């Protein structure tokens, strides 16, 4: 009798082992894939060198490029580029990296935002709330304005600046342990100080070119990125996304609150710090190639959460797909909205993301705690 009850109870549990891969997640991933591919194809079809859609897409699916190992070695490892026709060269060597960088940056920012929201247990957290953006922005400005000789190291320095700012936030928030509220407050303080320093630096800029370049970094832009940027961003992206997916269960337990997580045997401070480190890595990877794309890391996890719920196994997989799709889409907007003038993609994400977030806020009664 008792055995019967148990067996009846046990069966669905066993069936549900992969039950978190449900319909809504599959739909989201598939939809994102379609959006990313379509937006990517649109993106590579426009530029200074005019060609028809058919010509451009023919160049994209040119089998001589697509299946040539040497070409990929050139793209991903920086080897010499083999001969190819002019259209393929333009599409693949000049336009395509912009799409790939958008994919990587979108993935990183979405995953990073999702992690920070769990770590702080706050839906309004983003990669930049813990000081990363202002720290990175400050080092970028410092490099461009004061140490212009180091500008080849800009991506690395941006990441270093973000990390330092985060460590500063953590130190300020630490008082025999941290709490989500203290982390966010410390983030606000550090952001404020670094932003003041940024503004101060603008006064020392000599020429307009430097200021424009700095502004591009601070608003987030994908204009002019190449395969070298892909090579910079790809390794940290792969590492960060893998670690994030592996840590999904830890994030789920963190969502139950510090007390519960700790009584379940989690060393909360350590896990929180390590996962924050993963999120910083992801955010730095994005910042180093795309600058500071605002609102993205805040809004995308939120959209995904509305579709798939707050289970981080689903949420992170959703972010890995939806982030790239939305970033490529936003970048198409940045490229084509005021054609031929290009605007930074960060302006688009801010202009679209802000009102969308406002709409969500008005629609939902409760917002803030996950």
């Amino acid at each position, binding site marked *: 009798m008792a055995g019967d009850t148990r067996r009846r109870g046990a069966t669905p549990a066993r069936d*549900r082992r992969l039950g978190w891969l449900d319909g809504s997640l599959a739909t989201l991933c598939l939809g994102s894939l379609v959006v990313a591919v379509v937006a990517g194809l649109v993106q590579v079809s426009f530029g200074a060198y005019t060609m028809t859609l058919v010509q451009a897409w023919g160049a994209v699916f040119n089998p001589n490029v697509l299946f040539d190992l040497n070409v990929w070695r050139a793209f991903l490892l920086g080897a010499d580029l083999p001969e190819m026709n002019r259209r393929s060269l333009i599409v693949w060597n000049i336009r395509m990296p912009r799409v790939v960088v958008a994919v990587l940056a979108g993935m990183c920012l979405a995953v990073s935002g999702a992690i920070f929201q769990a770590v702080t247990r706050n839906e309004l957290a983003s990669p930049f709330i813990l000081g990363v953006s202002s720290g990175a922005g400050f080092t970028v400005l410092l490099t461009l304005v004061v140490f212009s000789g180091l500008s080849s190291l800009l991506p690395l320095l941006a990441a270093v600046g973000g990390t330092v700012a985060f460590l500063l936030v953590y130190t300020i928030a630490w008082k025999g342990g941290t709490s989500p509220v203290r982390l966010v407050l410390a983030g606000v303080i550090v952001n404020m100080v670094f932003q003041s320093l940024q503004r101060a630096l603008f006064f020392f800029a000599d020429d307009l070119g430097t200021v424009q370049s700095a502004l591009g970094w601070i608003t987030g832009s994908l204009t002019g990125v190449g395969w070298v940027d892909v090579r910079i961003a790809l390794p940290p992206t792969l590492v960060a996304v893998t670690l994030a997916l592996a840590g999904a269960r830890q994030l789920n337990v963190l969502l139950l609150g510090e007390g*519960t997580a700790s*009584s379940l*045997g989690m*060393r909360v401070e350590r896990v929180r710090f390590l996962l924050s480190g993963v999120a910083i890595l992801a955010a730095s990877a994005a910042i180093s190639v795309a600058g500071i794309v605002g609102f993205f890391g805040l809004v995308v996890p939120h959209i995904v959460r509305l579709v798939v719920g*707050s289970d981080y196994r689903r949420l992170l997989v959703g972010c890995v797909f939806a982030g790239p799709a939305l970033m490529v889409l936003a970048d198409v907007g940045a490229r084509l909205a005021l054609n031929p003038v290009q605007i930074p993609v960060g302006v688009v994400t801010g202009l679209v993301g802000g009102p969308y977030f406002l709409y969500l806020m008005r629609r939902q009664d409760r917002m803030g705690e996950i």
Partner: protein
Amino acid sequence: MPDEDAAEVDRERPGDAADTDGRERTTDGAESGGRARAPDGAEERRSDGPDTDERARRVRTAQTRAESKLVGDSLAVGYPSTDEPVVECETVVLPEGEITALVGPNGSGKSTLLKAMANQLSPERGRIVLDGTAIQSMDAKELARRLGLLSQENSSPGSLTVEELIYHGRYPHRGFFDSLGEADHAAVDRAIDLAGVGDLRDKEMGNLSGGQKQLVWIAMVLAQETDLLLLDEPTTFLDLHHQLRVMEVVRTLNDEQGVTVGIVLHDIGQAARFADNLVAMKDGGLYDWGPPRDVVTGELLADVFRVDATVDRESPTGPHISPHRALDE
């Protein structure tokens, strides 16, 4: 040397707690009991009659109770934000295989003491020993496999299903990359059966009532499969039906699986009915310790809870309390 003290606690078994032995302890026990509740400043009340000595003896003999599952020794517990310790007590014991209820008025330190006993608060002084090992030196997951704690307030994402939440109880049994195994499924099924939440299995936490939520949280702690369970006011804010269901789950667990339970209860009447032992706390110290029939008296209710009440000790369901009015002080 605190180490030697604890060793002494461990060595003592009921066999050697013979009468002579017990008498001996009575003398030094009076001191110890007095110190435990020093802050209440009730010096005159302390010396008026045999009850005080009796109480002191019981508090002291808490040490001699053998098969102690969890022992707190010379504890001072506080929070980072407070200078003075919130709780100070010489000895607190959870006897193996019994239900011990911590009772006391608001702010008497019962939750603080429970948190310290679950290693969620580090005591400023003293140590807590589980089965002979100091819990401070244990690995966090190892401790969570042996000691389950349910906090007073719990929150979860509203879209989490009941079953998913209960599976989190398996956290201490799983390594970082371990997937769920047969043992995990079996433990979760048992926990669901025991807590009687089978019909809620696929519901989302956000759609449950307070009482249902509490039963689900208890199921999560049960899935940890510990032989010691600490519960912080699990029945507060619940309707009577769910209060009784929670207490029945605890009782069943104790009866059938011999799980040792430490439970903070707001309602002393409930504590008197369900618990094998009561630990009465007042102003951060231990006031009394023992079986409900010995501990629950009119004097306790006046001293600790500041109510005028009569106690029917002969009631078949445990001491029955009829409160009359609040005492001024």
